[in-house]
């Protein structure tokens, strides 16, 4: 995979490793600062009977910040730290997004119409769009998976799964 990216006639375009490194390091830095902030509120000292509630989170956050500053420093000032390497090519990113975006819609769907109905739609959509299966086949498989999970969770194991804000299955009494 690496070779494919680095070699090749023209350097393939995409998000560079450098950018990705910076984004993740900054993300961790922000996270660390947030944790530090809350730990100070909780008390981060070593009291007479051992550490307070914020003691460990505070130092954990300090270490996170130091480590991400370290990574950041290496990326910004180190030599040839992947400046020309590509983190993800646009083509690849498109493929990744083709899974991620529908997945996000799927989760949103669960929130609205519940796991069972959203699953049918998601599986069918995925198979038709990316797998080029026929609509009938895809919908049938989606329904099969949903019915199987429904039987297993709701009926046999008695584990209620999320039915969504607008429960479309309320007519069958669940």
């Amino acid at each position: 995979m690496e070779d494919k990216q680095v070699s090749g006639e023209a350097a393939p375009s995409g998000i560079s490793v450098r950018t990705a490194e910076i984004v993740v390091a900054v993300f961790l830095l922000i996270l660390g600062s947030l944790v530090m902030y809350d730990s100070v509120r909780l008390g981060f000292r070593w009291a007479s009977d051992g550490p307070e509630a914020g003691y460990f989170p505070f130092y954990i956050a300090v270490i996170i910040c130091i480590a991400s500053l370290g990574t950041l420093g290496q990326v910004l000032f180190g030599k040839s730290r992947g400046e020309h390497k590509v983190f993800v090519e646009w083509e690849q990113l498109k493929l990744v997004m083709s899974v991620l975006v529908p997945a996000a819609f799927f989760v949103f769907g669960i929130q609205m119409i519940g796991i069972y109905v959203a699953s049918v739609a998601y599986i069918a959509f995925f198979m038709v769009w990316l797998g080029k299966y026929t609509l009938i086949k895809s919908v049938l498989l989606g329904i099969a998976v949903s019915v199987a999970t429904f039987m297993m969770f709701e009926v046999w194991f008695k584990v209620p799964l999320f039915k969504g804000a607008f429960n479309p299955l309320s007519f069958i009494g669940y």
Partner: protein
Amino acid sequence: MEEINALFHGFSVALTPFNLMLMVIGIVLGVLIGVLPGLGGANGIAILLPLTFTMPPTSAVIMLSCIYWGALFGGAITSILFNIPGEPWSVATTFDGYPMAQQGKAGEALTTAFTSSFIGAFFAVVMITFLAPLVAKFALKFGPPEFFSVFFLTFCSFIGMGKEPPFKIVAAMMLGFALAAVGIDTVTGQLRLIFGWHELMRGFDFLIAVIGLFGIGEILLSMEEGLSFQGRAAKIDMRIVIDTWKKLPKYWLTSLRSCIIGCWMGITPGGATPASFMSYGIAKRMSPDGAKFGTGMPEGIIAPETAAHAAGTAALLPMLSLGIPGSPTAAVLLGGLLIWGLQPGPLLFVEQKDFVWGLIASMYLGNIVGLIIVLTCVPLFAAILRIPFSIVAPVIIVICAIGAFTVNNAMLDIWFMLLFGVMGYAFKKLSYPMAPLVLALVLGDQAEDAFRQSMLISQGDVRVFFSNGLVGSIMALGLLMLFWPLIGKLKARMRNAS
């Protein structure tokens, strides 16, 4: 031998057609539960507990413990095939199991995992049979400082294993600790790191993170690899089982070591998850092929699986003899005993001979039945990989979403799962290691609780961790593990010098 007699009596109790049927049902249900992430062990048994309410206690516990064995077996399946650990203790199995499956050796990996599980469990059952009263006493020696030392040892035997940049290893591990701290703090009862957002109260469950980081992250990665919409070739032949078995005996030392680690962790009770991590870490240090761990070494499957299963089985011993649950699953089983009108504790072995020895006999039988069932299914499991990606991927995501939901019955967790998926994808590509993050997440708050309880006991005196022989030697062992790589280097230098 009194135990042998009692055991044979136990077999006569367990070996009725009705009980055998319950065993098979239990194993199959257990495998199913183990495969579904989120519904594993403790949850699964809690859910099925009321179903056993109408059975005689011995039959009920046989069925439930078989569900437990089944779940232990089942957890390995998705870890190996899809990089999704169905159970916390099978995380370490993904490290080498998934690469093996990727290389077309899924059948081999599964056989290795199942066989190791069986060996671990068998070792533990034999120990329970003959050493029960002796060993049970040992568990009582564990107070907060001793618990902390066990966690310390687990971390130490796992730290510093990666080839990733040190800054990133540290960042990943600390991120795990930070996530583990979210939610209520056991020692002070304060809500930590929730920033006024009450949905965060339940904290980040380890399984949510794992399903996202490993499962969803992996799907995103394989998507990128240029439409691998074809299933991977995997041999689906019963012969693979025999062929694998021929290769296994040479790993006897790893097996034995893992059995001992597992039993010890099950009894103490540290539990199956730390046992699997510790065993993997130590195997990596001790094995001549240690450097190749993570690329698909059978030893990397044997070590965690054997230890997890030995620990899972051994955890039942303190439950039966002391009434202390050695694992969350054992805690639920313990509740079961009360519901069936039995009283776990030191007198159970005296007052309920039929029940105890029936259960122990069923451990032998259940594991044998389980091994046969899962091994015959190896080709079937391996064949799943042949299903085209565009069918498997959405189904996996649906199952992951269900799993994420069932852990805490929380919708928000499904969103977190997706978020962790993106994080897993980015982390893997930027070589932030996932293992330390996961380990810190699963053991972080327990280790912190144990540490702070110790501090309360000693009124803030850190010397409590070296206050007696037991805790002192575990801590010393931990330090030894921590500096093991350095010691190795020193040794090499001395050899070069001479």
